[in-house]
């Protein structure tokens, strides 16, 4: 057996060390009706208090809604029949620098931007099928019709 190459081992170790202390990027604070979180191919029922991870996709059913607070204090809430993908979230709480990209594929979304957008305008984006929104601040709403 060949000895392990040091480089991949080192890379793995660095990846582990670089991982944030908390994998969670936000938390579900409000929920009404039928809401699910799609995570790594699984569809989980969403509950108040559930923590969210990067790449999670939230879906709301008819007469349903969900509200989340992100780690940078951004507030996102989606109305009925919505699909919201939390594509990318990186946040350094010491410097307030980071990146937050989400996508509303369908439905309605209300946003209050947080520390990421305040620190670096354009570091927060919300995509729709027809556009990309650059968030300088602070409150806005987005709808995507089917």
């Amino acid at each position: 057996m060949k000895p392990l190459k040091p480089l991949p081992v080192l890379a793995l170790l660095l990846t582990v060390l670089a991982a944030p202390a908390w994998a969670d990027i936000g938390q579900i604070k409000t929920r009404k009706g039928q809401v699910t979180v799609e995570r790594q191919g699984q569809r989980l029922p969403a509950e108040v208090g559930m923590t969210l991870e990067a790449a999670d996709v939230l879906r709301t059913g008819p007469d349903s809604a969900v509200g989340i607070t992100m780690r940078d204090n951004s507030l996102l809430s989606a109305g009925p029949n919505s699909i919201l993908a939390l594509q990318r979230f990186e946040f350094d709480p010491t410097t307030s620098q980071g990146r937050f990209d989400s996508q509303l594929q369908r439905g309605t979304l209300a946003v209050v931007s947080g520390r990421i957008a305040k620190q670096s305008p354009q570091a927060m984006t919300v995509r729709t099928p027809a556009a990309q929104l650059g968030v300088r601040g602070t409150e806005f709403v987005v709808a995507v019709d089917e």
Partner: protein
Amino acid sequence: MSSRAAAAALVLALALLAGCAAQPKSTVVLLPDASGRDTAVTVDHAGGQLVLDKPYAAAQLTRDGAQPASANAAQVMARFGDALAARPLPPASFTLYFVEGRDEFTAESKRDFDGVFAEIARRPVPDLVVIGHTDTVGTPAYNDTLSRQRAEVVRNLLVARGIAAERIVVVGRGERELVVVTADNVAEPRNRRVEIQVR
């Protein structure tokens, strides 16, 4: 209002109310900022870029491009009432000061600290961020460490009062966020503080 702007407003009003269209359509409306901060959203689309920087400025988008428009509060409530009703409570912020040179709150901050627990009780799933800040005395690196240590003191006080440690995140912001802007190496008690955010 020009006839073209009137037509655009009418199209938006109809779309906001009806919520349906021949092809996928997006609507963006900038809202007034609750605390009067500067607010704007840029909208990049197939035909270029729009900037929304006035309350209720709006854009109506399809894959082909964008139409500037405007909305009003009633239209926003009709279309976005459910999403707005689901919005979490905004984080509540408490700023605490220590007696000079001691790990003890000032009398006023002792009362404010009690208010933190009332705020926690208001929320179904509270989580807390404890953020330490320093003045500009010392190097930025030293102040990063110092601010974190001060925040840890407050975290321990919260845990001693029964808050689960895993619901608290501790941050040291160092001298990055001065309340009173000073030159470097200026002692300023109002900058030496710990902020608790209840979310």
